[in-house]
């Protein structure tokens, strides 16, 4: 994720881009590859990003719920740094067309 991604994600619910089903492959717990049918792009992602996308694939979530769900899945405590990371990550995933805010 580039450092210049904005710090805060817009309020509201987030989901996987509707027109872009994702194809997944992984061979270990640290690295995943995900293919976006909409853009034709393939992304190498880490476990945190994979957890975010997995949960948003299941259902649309608001940012606070997403943060807690992902933290629980990764057995990580929620602190300011983690919240900020997920918020910036969401903005970045939005920029590359993998997620979108939904009504």
């Amino acid at each position, binding site marked *: 994720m580039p450092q210049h991604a904005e710090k805060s994600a817009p309020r509201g619910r987030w989901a996987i881009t509707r027109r872009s089903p994702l*194809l997944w492959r*992984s061979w*270990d717990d640290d*690295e995943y*590859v995900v*293919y976006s049918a909409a853009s*034709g792009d393939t992304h190498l992602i880490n476990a945190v990003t994979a957890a975010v996308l997995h949960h948003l694939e299941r259902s649309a979530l608001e940012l606070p719920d997403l943060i807690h769900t992902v933290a629980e899945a990764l057995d990580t405590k929620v602190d300011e740094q983690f919240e900020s990371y997920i918020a910036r990550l969401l903005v970045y995933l939005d920029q590359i067309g993998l997620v979108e805010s939904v009504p």
Partner: protein
Amino acid sequence: MKLSDLSESELLSRCRGAGLAWRVEPFAVRVKTRLPDVARGLHFLYADFRLLKQDAVVDAELIVRRKLPMAGWVSIRVDGTVHYNWLRRKLVTPMVEWTMNVSMFQRPHQYFLVHAGVVARGDRAAILPGRAGSGKSTLAAALVGRGWRLLSDEVALIRPTDGLIQPVPRPISLKEESIDIIRRAFPDAVLGPEWPGTTKGTVAHMLPPSDSVTRAGEPARPTWLIFPIFDKGASATLEPMTKAKALMRTADNAFNYSVLGRQGFELLADLIDRCECHEFRYGNLEEALRRFDRLEPSTPVVSPTGT
């Protein structure tokens, strides 16, 4: 009948007339030209390849003509379209070979195409992806000199139906100092003339062994995916690469990944599933070959078709 079975007059007559057509498995090509040196060059490079009827249906047809009245220049057309319009006559033979290479791999999207050398031991293939300068052609030529079967110098053709690699053995294009390295290391290897002054520097072609040409109909199982890096003076080191990173690197080297879309991702991921993935740094060819001699699959190879 092979190209080598043609007499000089038959060869020139075909080239001047309806064309010289032959199989470069799994493709067919035809060349029409009145330039005898081009005809002789192809006769040498493709001596062991199967001749086709002159009117055979082909995947690519090249027409090589003089730019009259400019005696020192030629043009090359591919399927009726000008590919090179002003080409120096003295470099025409290597450029015809290069044009065949480009035209052959432009459209066969029935395969997943990866820019890679491919060699096989038994039915197990090592795919060596890499761009120009990575040392893949030199390594592939050396492995062929060591007894590996040549499947391809340039492009891995992966069959979507069963995930196997379709051989397309053609002359190996060696550049600059690689030419002497291969000549010295493998005195029995058959190399053609050197062509200085091409856009890739001095080029010479190593002929594929007859056995590789004869067995072009035998596909091989992808077993190793090895990214070579030539690093002068470096010891040969074979480092494991994570499969996710190998997938991304292979996608970078694939010609038609975006054309195939979702199917391309599935094919690539299946390929990665089947392969042991490594980065291979080498600075000395003999040491590199010794490392490849010890290469064994760590897991039993399972047929992609489940048989």
